[in-house]
């Protein structure tokens, strides 16, 4: 009985949140003087109007899911990793480096190693703040944010110096060989095997979190570090492991963007994927399958908004406003539920 009331309440609040965002979206569209019918028509046809547009949503969802998984793993361990953006860029550096400079080898091995390099560099980038938190209690929120700036500017330096394309004045690395590309899944669209990497990662993260002793410890530490250490779980070790996996997943997002989309390292390969990943993790309630759904949902929102901008002249910034609003509403809802249940 009590459970039913609770489920109804949750459902109701979700519907309310959806209604509020729809209302605000409409008001914003009206405010810029656009035709709402045309705008929303463009929005939905941008997402589901054609097979091509739908694959575009999935291409956009791939890095969001990977980085979102990373953020979710960290959040479950109460390691507030705000640095997925930086970890993604480090992963991109790793994948590009492995793609450009490793000796010739079979294609799939090369792709695998390049993705692993992305995982490794992203992981290292998160383990540093993880180590600083677990050993010296230095707040990871600040460190991971600062590491974003460092990583992004390392990319800036690399593409102008050691990894610069000697034949072009533009700040970017040489192009990877045309073969060295994650397999396309549906020619002629841009959909690439990065999506499979993301989905497999979600399953692996699920197994790791809920079916292994390490995941058990990670969740225990995230829920109550004190009780965990009182029963003999090493909180420090757990935080370091969770930060490594978290950064590694964000690094995979970077690797997948390099090997699946851009084919070279340059500045701005991530339109804030790493930050939006926080929203994805939040919407997905830090559960790997929730993250997959949220990643696709947010990607759809963004792609839809871009189409709306192109066809109905409504600024795509609306999607960012909607995302911000969603976060505030969801956090507010959690507070509201908590304050009523105690």
């Amino acid at each position: 009985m009590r459970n039913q009331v609770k489920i109804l309440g949750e459902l109701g609040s979700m519907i309310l949140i959806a209604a509020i965002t729809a209302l605000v979206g409409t008001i914003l569209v009206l405010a810029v003087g656009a035709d709402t019918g045309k705008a929303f028509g463009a929005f939905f046809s941008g997402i589901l109007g054609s097979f091509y547009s739908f694959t575009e949503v999935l291409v956009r969802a791939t890095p969001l899911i990977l980085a979102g998984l990373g953020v979710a793993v960290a959040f479950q361990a109460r390691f507030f990793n705000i640095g997925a953006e930086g970890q993604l860029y480090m992963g991109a550096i790793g994948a590009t480096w492995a793609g450009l400079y490793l000796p010739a080898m079979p294609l799939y091995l090369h792709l695998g190693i390049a993705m692993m390099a992305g995982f490794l560099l992203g992981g290292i980038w998160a383990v540093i703040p993880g180590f600083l938190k677990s050993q010296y209690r230095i707040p990871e929120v600040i460190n991971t944010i600062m590491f974003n700036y460092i990583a992004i500017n390392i990319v800036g330096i690399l593409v102008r110096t050691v990894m610069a394309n000697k034949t072009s004045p533009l700040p970017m690395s040489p192009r990877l060989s045309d073969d060295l590309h994650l397999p396309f899944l549906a020619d002629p669209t841009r959909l690439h095997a990065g999506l499979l990497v993301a989905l497999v990662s979600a399953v692996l993260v699920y197994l790791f979190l809920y079916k292994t002793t390490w995941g058990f410890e990670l969740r225990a530490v995230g829920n109550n570090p004190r009780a965990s250490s009182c029963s003999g779980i090493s909180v420090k070790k757990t935080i370091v492991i969770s930060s490594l996996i978290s950064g590694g997943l964000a690094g995979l997002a970077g690797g997948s963007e390099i090997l699946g989309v851009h084919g070279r390292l340059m500045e701005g390969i991530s339109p804030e994927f790493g930050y939006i990943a926080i929203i994805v993790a939040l919407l997905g309630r830090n559960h790997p399958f929730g993250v997959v759904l949220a990643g696709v949902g947010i990607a759809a929102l963004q792609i839809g908004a871009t189409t709306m901008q192109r066809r109905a002249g409504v600024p795509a910034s609306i999607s960012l406003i909607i995302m911000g609003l969603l976060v505030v509403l969801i956090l507010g809802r959690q507070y509201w539920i908590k304050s009523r249940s105690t």
Partner: protein
Amino acid sequence: MPLLCMKQVCKSFGKVQANQKVNLTVERGEIHALLGENGAGKTTLMNILYGIYQPDSGSILMDDQPVSISSPGEAISLKIGMVHQHFMLVPTLSVSQNITLGIKERGYPFTDRKEVDRKITRVSREYGLDIDPTAIIEDLSVGVLQRVEIIKLLYHQAELLILDEPTAVLTPQETENLFAVLKRLKEDGRSIIIITHRIAEVQSIADRVTVLRDGARVGCDNIGNVGEARLSEMMIGRQLDTAVRETSHQNRLNEAAVLSLENVSLNGRNVNILSKLTLELKPGEILGLAGVDGNGQKELAEVIVGIRRPDSGKVLFEGNDVTILGVRKRKRIGMAYVPDDRHHDGLILDMDLSSNLILNAHDQPPFARFHFLNDQVRRRHAEQTITDYQVKTPGVGTLVRYLSGGNQQKIILARELDGIPKLIVASQPTRGLDIGAEEFVNKLLLAQRDRGAGILLISADLDQLIKLSDRIAVIFDGRITGLLNNHAGIDLAEIGLKMAGVA
């Protein structure tokens, strides 16, 4: 006409009654001790007086005028001041800035700091509270910080000073100085309420004492009329007729010790939490550890099970030195720990019952193989435990948060006793439980003893200790002040005095 009169004050937090119809009267120019154990409701009552909490019912009269104090600001304007147990000072500001915090001095915002400093120096000289007004708070020691807090009250011209456990962080010399200052303030006509759980302190400084227990007033008397024994009895609440000990079992006091502590010391920031503590526990006995809360019991328990490392001394388990082993290893070799703080130390409230039951065996067969959890085994284990321990729960997947206190404690006990431990450290295992659950826990401990486990039972409840223990050790100020065999004619007065550190 008394300065302060609190009448029939009630305050509850959720289901917990923190204060029940408490009366308190304080005269002008007296030092009034508010005595009681941790959780007796002393601080709550004073927080009501200081305007931090609002009472559910009851009234407060100052000089026979009813007053309502809805904020600390109002309390200050009524000339009431409070020094909290944890000082409320801004570490990066100077002494004088802290003292005038929140006051608009003449010339504000361009306060004449030198003038203020002179005024502070004048006040501090008057009462022998030596202080440098320009010093920065974070550079000062705890004893000096307390002086700053007291000068702050005097600067605000408080007539009624409330001090919450003021000696908890002081060295004996600092305590002596503090008491001298308090006496001078009293001669000056000010009234002081001192919150404490130390009987010796009450005796040396207070004129009158009010004793609280479980949120209710147990008594109030002039200090000359009540002896130490009477005070400890009032505070701990031992009823004279209960506590019948079950004496049937044979203890094994001549066997080798399961646990020995050798000169274990643990240093806090400014005080020694444990000082050269030595203790032995035999298999098949319950060693009761009596003492007023906060004398090092919790830290001792944590040193034994490996949550804390002692600064010096040794912990021996079955004759082997385990001082450097971590919690996990110690639990594997046969230690169990029932912590006093279920919610923070014992359980992961937002994980389910079955997970909490395997918290320290989760990576051992049959619960896990090659680091993969076996959900089925875990669930079956939980179902079995629910039957064995009569846990009332909707199911094994219920979050532990939603269980009652007694059922939560059963989860901890079931988990800790699952490995058939040789040593059980049980800290306040029945605190906050209803009578039925308490009985269940007591029986369980006796059964474990009969099985041959050595049990260190830490409890503030003397009744429980007398009912269950084979021997009773008394801890005061991080030292064992007495070790008695528990027999029918055990001298309760002696235990009480040792708990108070006066014998």
